[in-house]
C-alpha cells in the first residue's frame, strides 16, 4: 500500500508547505561525463512490428534531440532459437522488426528473449521474459466532482476504475498504462503506475487480491473523464527487474522537495560482453498485455458513493 500511499501523504505534507514555499528554474553548472550508448527497447506479445531505439547519451542540460546510434546490428533471439533481426531502414536509430503479417506477434507469454547489439566495436546483450498477465474483468465509472476547478479535465465528471485480479503466487509485477481515446495518456514518468501482486510494493502480502482501489483508479491521471470519452487501460506483466527499473525512473524524475531521497542512478539490464568495455544505458523490457476500453455513458455510471 505503501509507495503510492506514501506519495499521497508526502504530497499532502508538501502541500502544507505551499503556503510559503516556491520553486523556480535556475541555471547550474554540472560536470559532463563521456557519451554512452542508450538502448530504448520494449517488446510485447501484441501483434505487429517491434522497435528498439538506439541513441547516445548527452550532457544533462543539452536539450537538443538525442543523437541516434547508427550502423548497429540488432537482433532478438527467443528461447526457441528464433532470431528476429531489427533494422534501421530510415537511418534514424530506430531499429524495427516487422512480421510478414500484422497478426503475427514477436512475444509470447512464457517466452524468454535476448537482445544482442553490435555497435562501435562493442557487443551488448540483455535478457528479459514475458510473464503471465491477468485479464481485465471490467471497467466501471462513477460520478465525481472536484471541489474546485481542476487545472485539467472537467470539474464534474467521471472517475473510472478497472478491475483485475492478481494471480495467486507471490512476486507478480505489473505496469498499468492508462488509455484515453484509444491512446496512451498521462505518460509522464511521475505517473508510472506499478503493481506488486495486488498492491504497491513487496514486503506486505497482497497476493491474489483484486488490485487495490488506488491502483484501480490510477487510470485517472490527475483528471476526470467526460461523458463520451473512451477510457481504457493496458495492463503489462513485467519482470521484477523491469519493476525496479520503472520504479527508479519514477523516483528519479519526481525527486524534489523536502522529502527528496538521495538521487541514484537508474539501473540498466544492458551489459557489455566485455566487462572492461564501454557501458550502455537504458533497458530492454518485455511484457504481455491485457487491454480493455469503454465509452463513458452517463446512464451506466454508478451512483456517487
Amino acid at each position, binding site marked *: 500500500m505503501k509507495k503510492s500511499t506514501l506519495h499521497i501523504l508526502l504530497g*499532502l505534507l508538501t502541500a502544507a508547505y505551499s503556503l510559503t514555499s516556491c*520553486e523556480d528554474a535556475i541555471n547550474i553548472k554540472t560536470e559532463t561525463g563521456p557519451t554512452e550508448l*542508450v538502448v*530504448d527497447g520494449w517488446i510485447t506479445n501484441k501483434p505487429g512490428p517491434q522497435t528498439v531505439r538506439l541513441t547516445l547519451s548527452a550532457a544533462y542540460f543539452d536539450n537538443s534531440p538525442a543523437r541516434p546510434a547508427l550502423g548497429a546490428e540488432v537482433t532478438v533471439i527467443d528461447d526457441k532459437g528464433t532470431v528476429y533481426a531489427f533494422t534501421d531502414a530510415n537511418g534514424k536509430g530506430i531499429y524495427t522488426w516487422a512480421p510478414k503479417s500484422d497478426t503475427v506477434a514477436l512475444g509470447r507469454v512464457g517466452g524468454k528473449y535476448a537482445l544482442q547489439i553490435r555497435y562501435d566495436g562493442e557487443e551488448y546483450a540483455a535478457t528479459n521474459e514475458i510473464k503471465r498477465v491477468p485479464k481485465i474483468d471490467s471497467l466501471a465509472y462513477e460520478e465525481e466532482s472536484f471541489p474546485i476547478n481542476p487545472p485539467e479535465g472537467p470539474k464534474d465528471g467521471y472517475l473510472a476504475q478497472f478491475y483485475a485480479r492478481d494471480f495467486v503466487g507471490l512476486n507478480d509485477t505489473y505496469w498499468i498504462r492508462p488509455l484515453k481515446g484509444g491512446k496512451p495518456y498521462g505518460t509522464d514518468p511521475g505517473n508510472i503506475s506499478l503493481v506488486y501482486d495486488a498492491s504497491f510494493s513487496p514486503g506486505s502480502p497482497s497476493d491474489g487480491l483484486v488490485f487495490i482501489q488506488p491502483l484501480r483508479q490510477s487510470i485517472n491521471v490527475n483528471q476526470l473523464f467526460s461523458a463520451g470519452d473512451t477510457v481504457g487501460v493496458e495492463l503489462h506483466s513485467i519482470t521484477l527487474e523491469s519493476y525496479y527499473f520503472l520504479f527508479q525512473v519514477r523516483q528519479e524524475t519526481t525527486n524534489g522537495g*523536502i522529502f527528496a531521497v538521495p538521487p541514484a542512478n537508474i539501473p540498466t539490464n544492458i551489459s557489455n560482453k566485455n566487462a572492461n568495455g564501454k557501458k550502455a544505458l537504458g533497458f530492454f523490457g518485455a511484457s504481455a498485455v491485457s487491454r480493455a476500453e469503454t465509452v463513458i455513458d452517463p446512464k451506466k455510471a454508478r451512483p456517487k458513493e
Partner: protein
Amino acid sequence: MKNIVRIAGLSILLLNALNTYAQEKYTVSGYVKDIANGEGLIGVSVYVREASTGVVTNPYGFYSITLPEGDYSLVFTYIGYQKLTERVTLNADQRRNVEMASESKQLEEVVISTKKEDENVRSLEMSVNKVDIKTIRQIPALLGEVDVIRSIQLLPGVTTVGEGASGFNVRGGDVSQNLILLDEAPVYNSSHLFGFFSVFNPDAVKDVKLIKGGIPAQYGGRISSILDVRMKEGNTKKREINGGIGTIFSRLTYEQPFAAGRGSFIVAARRSYIDVLAKPFLKGDLKQTRFNFYDLTAKVNYRINDKNTVYASGYFGRDVFGADVFGFGWGNGTATARWNHIFSNKLFLNLTTYYSNYDYSINSDPNNQTPNDRFEWNSKIISTSVKPDFTYYLTPNNQISFGGQYISYDSRPGDAVAVSSGESRNISLDSRFGDESALYIGNEQKISDRFSLQYGLRYSLYRNLGPGQVYQYQELQPGERKFPVLPGTAVAKGEVIKQYGNWEPRFSMNIGLSSTASIKASYNRTAQYLHLLSNTAATSPLDVWTLSTNIIKPEIADQVALGWFQNFRDNTYEASVEVYYKDLKNQIDYVRNSDLLLNRYVEGDLLFGKGRAFGAEFFLRKNKGRLTGWLSYTLARTERLIDGVNNDDWFPARFDKPHNFTAVGIYNLKERLTLSSTFTFASGTPATFPTNRFEYNGWALPHNVYNARNNNRIPSYNRLDLAATLKSRKKLFGLGQGEWVFSVYNAYNRRNPYSVYVQQNEDNPLTTEAIRFSVIGSVIPAVTYNFKF
C-alpha cells in the same frame, strides 16, 4: 550481566572507601529557589568565602557542601539575581534553603543566561550551550512563534538540513542521534507540522541545555547530543496566568500553588487555529478538512517534607490532517514521575520513571463509508523506564554521581490492514521488543584551584528480545538490496535474539590559566540502540524508530574536544574556541530503491558504514548591558563512508555545511521596548547532480557516470530576522501585563534554497532543467500578543 555486577560492586566499594574517610566534617545543604515564583534554580553558584571553594545547584536546585566545623559565609550568585550571603555556624549538619530575588525588572529582561557569572571558564562543562528561556523568547521567531529548537540552531556546532526540516544536527550527527529530553522523558519527534514548530510550549519551559560533547556518564542512549529541556514547576507563591495569541498558535498557561506553597502545578496548552479560521470559507467536501496541531503540558510538584519532593509531569501533542476520505495523525505522549529524596545531607537521589510514546495512524476512510476498499495503518513505539540517579557530595572537591537506568522498548512498526473489493488482508509487521540497562558512576574532582577533572564510566547492555521472526540476509552486490534467507528462525517470547554491551568512558578536565581563562579537554564514547530509518532529506513523521537487531548494530561515537575559554570585562563577555573530532561507527544508509515502511525485510534495504566529523567552533557572547547576544562561527566537515555508495569513497553527509555563521543581538532600547535581530549565513548543503541525460520512452532521464553521491553543493544560505517587543503601558484589565511582539522573518526577502534538483520540464518531458526549491520564499511578518496575570 557479569559486567553490570562488576560495575555495581565497584561503585559500592568506592563509596564505602570514600565514606570512611569523610567523617569529622559537617554538611550544609538545601534548595535554592526563586523568591518570586518558588521555581528551583538550576546552576546557582554557592561559594564559601572562607574555604575558597564552592558548588553549583543541581537540576532540582539542590546543593550540598561539606566543610570542617566553623563559621562560614555562603555566597549565592546567579546572573540576573541579587547576590545573597548567608552566615552559617557549622557545628552540626544543617539544612539551609534560600530564596533569591531577581535584579531590577529591566535587567531581568536582558539576561542572556542564568548561571554563575564565570561558570563558562570555571566549570568542567565544555561543548555545552545553555540558552535561557527569556533569551529564546526575545530572538525573532518564524511567524512569531517562540521556538526552542530553532533557537538551538543558532548555536555553534548545530546545523539543520533546511527550513522546515524537523530537528537539528549536532557536530556531524544526524537528527535521530540527539537525545531530546522533556523532564527526563525522551521525545521521539520534536516537531509539529514536520519541522516548522517544535513541540515545546515556551510558556512551560524553564531551562534548556544542549550538551554537544563531554557528555557526563548519567546520559546515554543517543550518540551525538543531549537536549535537556526542563519544564517549569509552577508558581508556589501565587496564581499566575500566561497566554498569547499568535499567528499560528493560541496559548494559555495556568499556574497555582496549593497546600500553602508546599506544592504547585502548571497546565499549559497550545492549539493551532488555521482550520478554525478557514472553516467558514470551505465548501462541500472541503468542509470536512481537518488540519491542526496542539499540545498539552502539565506538571505538579509537592514537597512532602524536608527530605522528599515528588513531581509528576506529562506532555501530549498531536498533529491532525484529514478530509472525509482520509485521515492522518501523529504525536508524542510522555509521562514522568520523579521523587527527590535527601538520604543525608550529602546523598541526594532523584528517581525517575517515565513512559514515552510516539505513534501515527493513517486511515484511508475514517468514516468507513466504503468498507469494501480500505486501508488502515498504525505505527507506534513505546518506551518505559526507571532511572535512579544519586549524587553524593563527598567533599567540596569530590562530587560523585552514580545510578542506572532500565528501559523497555515495545515497537510496533506497522499494524496495517488492506481491504480490496471486500477481501481483507492483514499486512502487519511483527512487533519488536528490546530492553536497555545501564549503570554508571562518575566523579567531579577538584584537584587544585586551577585543575579539575570529571571522569566516569557507563556500561550499557541492550537485548533484542523475542518473540519474533529472525532473518539472515544474503548480499549479492554491495550497495544493493539484500534478500532474506527464508523461512528465518522463530524466536520465542522473552528469548534473547541478540545482545550488545558497551563500555562508555567519559572524561573531561579543566586547567585554569587565570581567573578568567581556562583550557578544557574532553573525551566521550556513546552508544545508541535505537535508530530512525529515514532516507529523506528531512525526516518525516512516517519514519519508524527501529531497534537494534541481529543485523542492525548499535551506533557508536567517540568524540574528543579541546577548548579555550576566556571571559573579559568582569564577565561581560565570554569567548570560547573549541575543536572536535568525532568518529561514528555502524551508521545507516539505504539502497537506492529502499522501502522502509511496512516492509518485513527492511533490514535488507539498509547499508552500513562509518562517519567522521570534525570542526572548530568560535563563540563570543555578551551577557550584560543593554545590548546582549552572541556571534558564532563554525567551520566543520561531516562525511560518511558507506559500503556500495559513492564508489566506496567518503562523501559529505546531507547536512554537511562547512561554514556556519550566526549573529544574535538583543537591544533593550527602553524599559518597555526591546529590539532583536538574528543573522545567519551557511554554506549550501550538498546535492547530487547528474552528468548526463539519456532518452527512454520519450523521457529525458538523469545519469551520473561517476556514480557519485553529493558531488555538488547548492547556493549558500543567508537570512536576517528582526523583532520588537513592546510592553503595554496600561495594565491589562487593571491587573495584568501585556506585550506585543512584532517580527519579520527573512527580512530582505531572499529565496534561500532548501534544495536544488533536476527534472524534466512538466510540459515537455524531453527538456531538462534545474529547479531551486525554497521552503520560505518571501518575507514573513507576524504579530503576537502575550499577556500575564
